[in-house]
């Protein structure tokens, strides 16, 4: 109840002026360094819990793979019409996961969305590690993994080449290109921060960061070259990211199988990729925020913006999904229609409906501000969304084999064996392990970009060019490179 002018002012301020900010504008540069560098030292206990659990899961996967390598693909319980299983489905899932790092760091960078700055570094690391995981799945899937290099176009004395008509060759090329580019991008963007680590480290860490920071001094010339290089690689990476998942989609779209032979697959795959990637970013955001005490940088408004982005992409995905269903339903291809009906009513029906529910209905919870600002709810929702997206990939791959064009495929039951599940679980362990190691060794929040963000925002707020007037601390404690 508002009775006095003062109370009214307080109320107004709460509603408008005190709108939560992406980041505190009076945060000192030295404080940023201190907070982020602390993440390299003593994380919360949960870090080690996650790390050990991931390591254990990874070991499960490794032992499954050793068993499969020695015995043959039969232990995966694949059979002759069902030659692809969870491996290919999870491969697409990991490839998809890799797309949001590029979205955040490259696309939003070019669009000058500066709220991405505190969270893009770990998203990029996610890109790199999920691509590595996806690459492993190609290996795990091959019958004779020891000869995987036949797919690579390398000069040899027999003059044999890969078959350039095959989408798998495009795949191998695209993934290797994307992996190398995203690693370079991640590394280049990290150089100024590595210099900060170098300046603050001692002992063997000092030589480690000295080696990695390539003699970064923070001179004007270095900054100018850095900006150009970073932007160039970002521009290079955007079409690459789109093409990689389009090419993965062509693996399916160029084949003749019902349920795969669909023109809208490339955009559908790209949308699905961004979707699962954004959901994964939310999950990791919440974990990192807690584990490394990044509450000051990974703020609620940023989480909310990411959630809004996820919601938008979820709607794009839902639309493209409906496009796929309706074009199949009203299309002329009776095999594809039959496969669609099979997916909705056959053996895979529970998973298919769950996929549709988790992928298209659950994101509507993100439309509510109260849920977007509720961390436990967001954690659960983001994991659910990723479960949905994983199911989606599985539902693309497996039902087609169970209901192919030829009737002989129709009466073959197939269920993935424990070896397959073990390797899938192991991949999550492997990814988490690498990701956690990365966050422990490298600054997972971009220090120099957060400083830029603080600086620009304080300028905007005060309408002045001289930031030292707003915060005298800036002038004394922090340099640009330190």
């Amino acid at each position: 109840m508002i009775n006095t002018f003062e109370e009214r002012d307080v109320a107004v301020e709460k509603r408008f002026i005190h709108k939560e900010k992406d980041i505190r504008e009076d945060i000192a540069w030295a404080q940023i360094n201190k907070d982020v560098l602390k993440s390299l030292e003593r994380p919360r206990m949960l870090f080690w819990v996650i790390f050990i659990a991931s390591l254990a899961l990874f070991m499960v996967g490794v032992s499954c793979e050793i068993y499969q390598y020695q015995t043959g693909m039969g232990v995966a319980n694949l059979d002759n019409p069902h030659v692809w299983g969870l491996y290919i489905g999870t491969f697409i899932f990991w490839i998809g996961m890799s797309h949001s790092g590029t979205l955040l760091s490259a696309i939003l960078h070019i669009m000058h969305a500066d709220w991405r700055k505190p969270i893009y570094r770990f998203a990029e690391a996610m890109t790199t590690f999920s691509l590595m995981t996806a690459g492993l799945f190609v290996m795990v899937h091959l019958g004779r993994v020891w000869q995987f290099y036949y797919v690579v176009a390398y000069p040899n004395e027999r003059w044999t080449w890969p078959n350039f008509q095959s989408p798998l060759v495009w795949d191998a090329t695209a993934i290797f290109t994307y992996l190398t580019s995203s690693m370079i991008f991640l590394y280049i963007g990290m150089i100024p921060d590595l210099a900060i680590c170098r300046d603050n480290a001692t002992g063997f860490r000092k030589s480690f960061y000295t080696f990695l920071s390539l003699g970064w001094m923070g001179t004007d010339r270095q900054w100018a070259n850095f900006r150009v290089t970073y932007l160039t690689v970002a521009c290079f990476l955007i079409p690459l990211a789109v093409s990689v998942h389009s090419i993965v989609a062509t693996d399916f779209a160029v084949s003749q199988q019902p349920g795969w032979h669909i023109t809208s697959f490339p955009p559908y795959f790209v949308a699905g990729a961004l979707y699962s990637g954004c959901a994964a970013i939310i999950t990791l955001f919440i974990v990192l925020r807690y584990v490394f005490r990044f509450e000051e940088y990974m703020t609620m408004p940023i989480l909310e913006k990411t959630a809004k982005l996820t919601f938008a992409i979820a709607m794009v995905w839902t639309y493209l999904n409906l496009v796929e269903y309706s074009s199949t339903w009203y299309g002329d291809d009776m095999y594809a229609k039959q496969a669609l009906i099979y997916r909705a009513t056959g053996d895979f029906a529970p998973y298919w409906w769950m996929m549709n529910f988790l992928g298209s209905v659950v994101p509507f919870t993100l439309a509510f501000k109260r849920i977007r600002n509720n961390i436990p709810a967001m954690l659960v929702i983001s994991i659910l969304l990723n479960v949905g997206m994983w199911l989606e990939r599985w539902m693309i791959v497996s039902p087609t084999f169970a209901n192919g064009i030829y009737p002989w495929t129709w009466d073959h039951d197939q269920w993935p064996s424990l070896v397959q599940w073990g390797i899938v679980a192991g991949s999550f362990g492997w990814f988490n392990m690498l990701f956690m190691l990365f966050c422990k060794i490298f600054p997972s929040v971009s220090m120099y970009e957060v400083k830029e963000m603080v600086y620009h925002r304080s300028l905007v707020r005060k309408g002045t060019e001289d930031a030292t007037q707003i915060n005298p601390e800036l002038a004394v404690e922090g340099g640009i490179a330190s």
Partner: protein
Amino acid sequence: MSITNLLNNWSFYRNKRPYRGQYDLNKEYSEYKWAMALDLDICTGCNACTTACYAENNLPVVGKKRFHHGQVMHWIRIERYWDEKMVDFPEQGASFLPMMCQQCEAAPCETVCPVGATSHTNDGLNSQNYHRCIGSRYCSANCPYKVRYFNFWNYPSTAWPAPLPDQLNPDVTVRTKGIMEKCTFCVQRLNEAKSRARTEYRLVRDGEVVPACVQACPTSAITFGNIVDPNSKVAKMWKNQQVDLYKDLQEKDNTVRGYRILEDLRPFPSVMYMERIRDTEA
């Protein structure tokens, strides 16, 4: 294939099958194009062809458990299609259909193999190079007939205990785990016949060589031969049934029984089937 070539001959590429000599429009098979004709009216579903194939091509017997897992390795399989359920089993009729690799002219498996382990030969076979295969199984995923079989286990170590390796066919390799295999039209027999004919400066005569399944068929339901030779039995059968190897939509009247399976997908298979005639009144 250049873009100009593609644009100039668009109707050709759209309506005709892409074949081995597709870069040269005038090139056709000059010596051999192996093909089959299979009369379902004569087939009794006795499985002799499957057995013969196991013996000829060193196929492993996988055992009951793996058979039920679907990891069976029959290059030719007898499919059984029950009649509509008017009556129960003893009276219920069934149709048999022997299914093997159709040796498609525009084989869907060939284009997708990442390492080019499967490709077309000069005599129109769809060959499989075991040494090149890395086991990505994309060929099987894209095969509409699902007639490719993958070595899920290391069968040479289990399928033939001690004295049994002596009965293996020395002309055919034994395949290890992790590679794809399929019906070859008994390419080892074809090659032997071809090289014998070459030493005598002639082509292989009709009926001189047949695959194991054709040889074993007690009712002679399967006919095999060189379709380039217009006087061969198989070429005559194809002609009588008005099935053209190079068309995806046959212009034929209702008096003939010949058809090819899944022709509308345009793989241009080399196996022609002849429908079974059922006397429903009897």
